[in-house]
């Protein structure tokens, strides 16, 4: 399946901070066919560093999508049955308007003059895209990590627009620990002299800061077990010497992932998006989690993973408990995996069974109700 990212431009988008962003581009991909009733559309929401390219092979780079193991014919999000949409988030750097985009007022990249964005701004923009595609009610909205936060925001902000939601390995709001890791990443970028207060687009980007930020991120995505299994104490060099020229495999891996990230991600997007995650709190304006979730009308499938210490199961259980307290339709399962937070991207066998069954029963009900 060769796919191509498309871009649609909207005149403006009002943001939570009061600024009206204009114009706004959204990069998106679609897979499968929308049925005549428009009832089989699923919106996927990517995690922090993801993009619109969720599935298939990109026509330019030949790269598989970030959830290619989950999206496609016969997979969890079966594209022979469903019409699947994925877009790059607001503030991103993969085609959707973000700090690296040109500010029409100055003719130069926004940089740090880009307005502060929120998870709900991202979702508001996704709603515009979904409307633009002619879909009034989605069958499902699904995503992990930051994608899961957007899933929750969808369920609360547009309760009538989505039949079922699948928040995976996520939280209703960041803990101090999650904010702390993001802050280390931001400080690494800002401490890099090449960052230049965010005004580096015609110069050298803050590659060292961004790659250190990514290294920290990768540690939090893995688990003690998965790192032991993948690297142990093995050395990259054959004869370890008692000096800094010896490199553990784990060090080499992190450096590689860090430097690779610099080529595909914008440092200012890193700052803006992590800030949006940290500031996200689904209870804002509602007082409490049960009150916020009481607004929802969708079926929920909440999934967490045993070894995920970045978004631990207790955070999913808070969501599940609040939903049950308001007698909402919620299924919950903690899946066994050693892969840490990355599990929702890499350890997808059992996750596939859950999502396939959950989607098809929701779809069956929806078709039955419509007929």
């Amino acid at each position, binding site marked *: 399946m060769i796919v191509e990212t498309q871009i649609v431009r909207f005149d403006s988008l009002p943001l939570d901070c009061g600024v009206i962003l204009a114009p706004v581009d959204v990069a998106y991909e679609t897979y499968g066919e929308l049925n005549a009733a428009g009832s089989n559309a699923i919106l996927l929401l990517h995690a922090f560093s993801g993009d619109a390219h969720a599935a298939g092979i990109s026509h330019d780079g030949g790269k598989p999508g970030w959830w290619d193991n989950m999206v496609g014919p016969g997979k969890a999000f079966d594209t022979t049955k469903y019409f699947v949409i994925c877009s790059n988030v607001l503030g991103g750097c993969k085609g959707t308007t973000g700090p690296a985009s040109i500010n029409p007022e100055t003719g130069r990249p926004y940089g740090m003059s880009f307005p502060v964005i929120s998870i709900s701004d991202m979702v508001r923009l996704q709603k515009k895209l979904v409307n633009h595609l002619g879909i009034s009610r989605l069958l499902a909205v699904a995503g992990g990590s930051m994608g899961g936060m957007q899933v929750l925001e969808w369920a609360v902000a547009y309760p009538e627009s989505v039949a079922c939601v699948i928040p995976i390995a996520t939280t209703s709001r960041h803990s101090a620990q999650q904010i702390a890791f993001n802050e280390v990443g931001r400080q690494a970028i800002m401490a890099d002299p090449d960052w230049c207060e965010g005004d580096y687009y015609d110069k050298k980007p803050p590659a060292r800061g961004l790659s250190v930020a990514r290294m920290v991120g990768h540690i939090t995505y893995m688990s003690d077990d998965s790192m032991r299994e993948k690297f142990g104490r093995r050395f990259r060099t054959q004869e370890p010497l008692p000096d800094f020229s010896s490199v553990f495999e784990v060090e080499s891996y992190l450096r590689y992932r860090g430097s690779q990230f610099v080529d595909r991600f914008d440092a200012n997007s890193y700052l803006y998006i992590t800030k949006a995650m940290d500031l996200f709190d689904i209870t804002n304006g509602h007082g409490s989690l049960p009150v916020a979730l009481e607004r929802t009308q969708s079926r929920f499938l909440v999934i967490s993973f045993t070894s995920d210490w970045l978004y631990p199961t207790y955070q999913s259980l808070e969501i599940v408990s609040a939903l049950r307290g308001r007698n909402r339709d919620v299924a919950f399962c903690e899946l066994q995996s050693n892969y840490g937070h990355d599990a929702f991207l890499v350890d997808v066998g059992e996750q596939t069974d859950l999502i396939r069954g959950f989607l*098809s*029963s929701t779809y069956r009900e929806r078709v039955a109700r419509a007929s």
Partner: protein
Amino acid sequence: MSAVSAELKLPSVRDVLGRSDYAIISQLVEPNTRVLDVGCGEGELLHWLALHKGVDARGVEIVGSKVQRAIARGVSVYQGDIDQGLADYPDDAFDYVILSQTLQEVRKPLKVLKEMLRVSQRAIVAFPNFGHWTVRLSHLWSGRAPQTKLFPHDWFDSPNIHFLTIHDFEALASREHWTVERAIYLSGDTSVRIFPNLMAEVGVFVVRK
């Protein structure tokens, strides 16, 4: 208390569900109601009820692999402990709460039963009858913890931690002032009409506060 219900058709769904208590429970539940199955296993009963009776079906199950299969079946199941699993639900959230073949396995049966009657109008409880004659004989002849078709486990690896009889349950219902709307006694696929405490392998009770 009503006697054995002659109008109940005997196992119509046994082929699907494979257990005679399920066959009875599936008939006791009224269509288009809200049903919670506590200790729902792989969700077979809930799935059947959702499909054939249009019920709003929910479940609680502790074993992860069973939860996975239930969700994969399309049933909304929550992975959690029964002893605490009901606490989140508001009062009268359901029309029926089902506890099938699980009462003898929970740590605090009375607390669970009270919680069931808090979150639901009616509780449907099915349990193996420790008063069955085979159990009594096994214990009498061997002088050891009874092992029968109904209670096949060795004492040291049995999931059962409470051993109750049909009379025990009736006594508790009376002590707690619960109304027993129906009581059905089963032996294999057939209903038992005489000496249920001796002859029934399984008791199925519908109780109300």
